[in-house]
C-alpha cells in the first residue's frame, strides 16, 4: 500500500512537469499549428540560466525561477518573431511542415549550443530546501504545487482578461478572429512567450531534483507532445489531467509491468485513446 502511494505520488510529480511543458505547447500548437519542438531546448537553456543565477549570482531560488521563466519567454518570443512568423502566410503547400522543420532545427541548435558552451558534463543545482514528508522531499512537493498554481494563473488569464479572450478567439477560428479585430501577431507573440515561460519554469522547478545537462529536455518534450495530443487541443484542464495521468500510468506501469518500457507506455495509451476518441479526451471537435 505504501509502495502504491509512493508510486502515485511520484507519478503526479513527474506528470506535473509534463503538463507544464505541454500547456505551452498546446496553446502554441492549437493557435499557430506549430508543434514547437524548440520548447524542449528552452527548457534546457532556462535550467542553465537558473543554475547560474543561483551558483554564480547567488540569487534566491524564487528569483532564479522567475529568471528562467523570463529567459524561456524571451527566447520563444524571439523565435516566433524572427522565424516562424515569416512562414505564417501559408503561400505554399508545405508551410506547416517548414515550421515544423524549423522547430526541430532550433531544438538541435539550442541543445548543442548548451553542449558546446557548458560541455556535456551534468551540473548540480543546489538544493534550496531541506526535509521531507511521507518520503517526498519538500522540493518535490513544491513542483506539484507550483505546477497547479501556474495552471490556475494561465487559466484565469485566458478566461478573465481581454488578451485571454483574444487568444481564445484565435484558437477557435483565426480568420474570424482577425475579422473581429483581434491582432493575430500579438496573440502569437503572447502564446509563444507564455509557452516559453512555462517550459522554463518547469525546468528550473525540477532542476534541484535532477541535474542540469544539455539533453535534459528530450524526455519532457516527448512526453509533452503526447499529453497535448491526449488532452486534445484547446483545453487547459485537459492538459493538466492528462499530464498527471500519464505520469501516474508510467509510474504504475513501471511498477507492475516493466520499468524497461517506462517511456513506451505513452504509445499504447495514445493508440487506445485516439481510436476511441480521435480528437483527444478533452479536445473540442
Amino acid at each position, binding site marked *: 500500500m505504501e509502495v502504491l502511494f509512493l508510486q502515485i505520488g*511520484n507519478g503526479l*510529480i513527474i506528470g506535473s512537469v509534463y503538463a507544464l511543458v505541454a500547456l505551452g505547447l498546446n496553446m502554441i500548437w492549437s493557435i499557430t499549428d506549430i508543434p514547437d519542438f524548440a520548447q524542449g531546448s528552452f527548457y534546457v537553456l532556462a535550467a542553465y540560466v537558473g543554475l547560474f543565477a543561483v551558483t554564480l549570482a547567488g540569487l534566491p531560488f524564487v528569483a532564479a525561477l522567475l529568471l528562467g521563466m523570463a529567459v524561456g519567454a524571451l527566447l520563444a518570443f524571439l523565435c516566433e518573431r524572427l522565424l516562424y512568423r515569416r512562414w505564417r502566410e501559408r503561400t505554399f503547400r508545405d508551410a506547416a511542415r517548414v515550421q515544423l522543420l524549423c522547430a526541430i532545427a532550433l531544438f538541435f541548435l539550442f541543445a548543442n549550443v548548451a553542449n558546446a558552451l557548458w560541455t*556535456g*558534463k551534468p551540473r548540480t543545482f543546489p538544493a534550496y530546501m531541506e526535509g521531507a514528508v511521507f*518520503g517526498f522531499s519538500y522540493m518535490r512537493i513544491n513542483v506539484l504545487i507550483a505546477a497547479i498554481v501556474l495552471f490556475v494563473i494561465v487559466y484565469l488569464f485566458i478566461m478573465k482578461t481581454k488578451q485571454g479572450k483574444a487568444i481564445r478567439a484565435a484558437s477557435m477560428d483565426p480568420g474570424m478572429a482577425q475579422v473581429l479585430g483581434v491582432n493575430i501577431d500579438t496573440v502569437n507573440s503572447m502564446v509563444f512567450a507564455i509557452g516559453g515561460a512555462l517550459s522554463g519554469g518547469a525546468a528550473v522547478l525540477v532542476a534541484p531534483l535532477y*541535474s542540469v545537462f544539455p539533453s535534459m529536455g528530450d*524526455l519532457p518534450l516527448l512526453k509533452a507532445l503526447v499529453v497535448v495530443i491526449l488532452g486534445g487541443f484547446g483545453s487547459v484542464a485537459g492538459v493538466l489531467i492528462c499530464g498527471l495521468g500519464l505520469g501516474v500510468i508510467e509510474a504504475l506501469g*513501471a511498477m507492475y509491468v516493466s520499468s*524497461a518500457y517506462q517511456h513506451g507506455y505513452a504509445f499504447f495509451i495514445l493508440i487506445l485513446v485516439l481510436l476511441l476518441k480521435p480528437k483527444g479526451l478533452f479536445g473540442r471537435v
Partner: protein
Amino acid sequence: MKRLKTGMLLVTAVVFGIISVCSSAFAADVIKIGYTAPFTGSAAEFGTNGWRGIQMALDEINAKGVSIGGKKYTVEIVRYDSVCTPTDGAANLRKLALEDKVVTILGDHCSSVCNAISPLCEQFKIPGITIECAADNVTKPGNDFYFRMRASVGLMAPLFTPKIIEKFGPKSAGYLVVNDDYGLGLAKAVEEEFNKAGVKSALLETFERGNTDFTVNLVKIKQANPDVVFYAGSASEGAMILKQANEMGITKEIKFIGSEEMGEMELLSLAGAKAAEGTYAVALWGAVPEDFAKQVKDRFNAPMHYAIIFGYDALHVAVNAIQKAQSLDPVKIRDALKQTDYAGLQGHIQFFDFDGYKNQGKAAPSLIQWKNGERVPL
C-alpha cells in the same frame, strides 16, 4: 527581406569558406594520431573528459618532442565526433585511416562503436587503443590491431565481488543499471559471481541514458528490499539516484555499491558529500599524483574523472610505442604496442592474450567507500 536573404547566403558562403581553409591546413614533421569519441549527444561528457586527458598528455609530449631516427616530430591529434553511434564511428575511422593518414587511433568510449571500429583497424592495419569500452566482446575474440588497457566487465567482476561478499555477506542483491552494453554487461557478470557465492538476485532494473527521475525504480528496490544494490552507470545518473534514494530514506537500509563511475570525484560535486556518504564503489584508479590532479583542476576547472586518466594514459602508451618502433609504419607501431610495459596512472599497463582475450590489459580494480567527502580505499 531581400537584404536578409542575401545576408543568409553570405553567411552560408563564409561558413563553407572557413571549412575549406581549415581542412587544408597542414604542417610538416608531425605525427598524426586519430581520436574518435562522443563530443555531442547524451554520452558527450565521456568524450569531453577523454579529450582533456589527451590534451594533458599531448602538451607533455610536445614539450619534449618525439624523435624518430634522429628527426624531431610533434604529435597532432585529429579528433572526430562519433555521437556514440556505430555508423558515425566507422565513418570517423575510415576518414582517419584513409584521408588523414593517422598512424594510430585512440577511441572510442562506447562499446557499440568500439565493436564497429575494431574490425576496421584490422582491415586498414592501423593499431587502435580503446579509451574506456568495457564490453567483453571488444577484445574477445578481438584482433591483432585493437588494444584495451582497462579490465573488461567480465574480468572486473571476479576481482571485486569477493571483496563485497567478504565485507557484507549479502543474501540478496538488486541491480540498477543503465540500459546499454556497459551497464547490462557488468550487471550480468556481477550477478554470475554473486550467484556462484549463493547471493540471490532480487531484481534487475534498467533505465535509459539521459533519464532523470529514478523514483519509480527506487520504490521497486525499496519493496524488494535486497541487502545490497549494485549500480552500473554514469556518475551523473548515479548522483541523481543517490540524491533521490536519500530523499526517500532508502540508503539507510540498503547498501549501494556503484561501478567505477561512482568512485569518481565528480560524484561528490554532483550528489554532494551528504548523499554520497557511505556509498561503496569500484575504483579503477587508486591515488593520482597530486600535481596531476591540480593541473586538471587549474586547466579545466573540472574534478578528476577516469576518462581523463584513460585518455592521458592512452596517448602516452601510443607515443611510447611509436618511439620504441622508431617508425611511423602502423604495423611496426602495432608490434611495439604489443611489447608495451608502461607505468600509467591507472596502474601498470601491459597487453596480454589469454582466456580468449586478445591485447587485453590486466589492471585490477579495487573498492572504495565515500566518507566525509573522501575516497577511502578498503
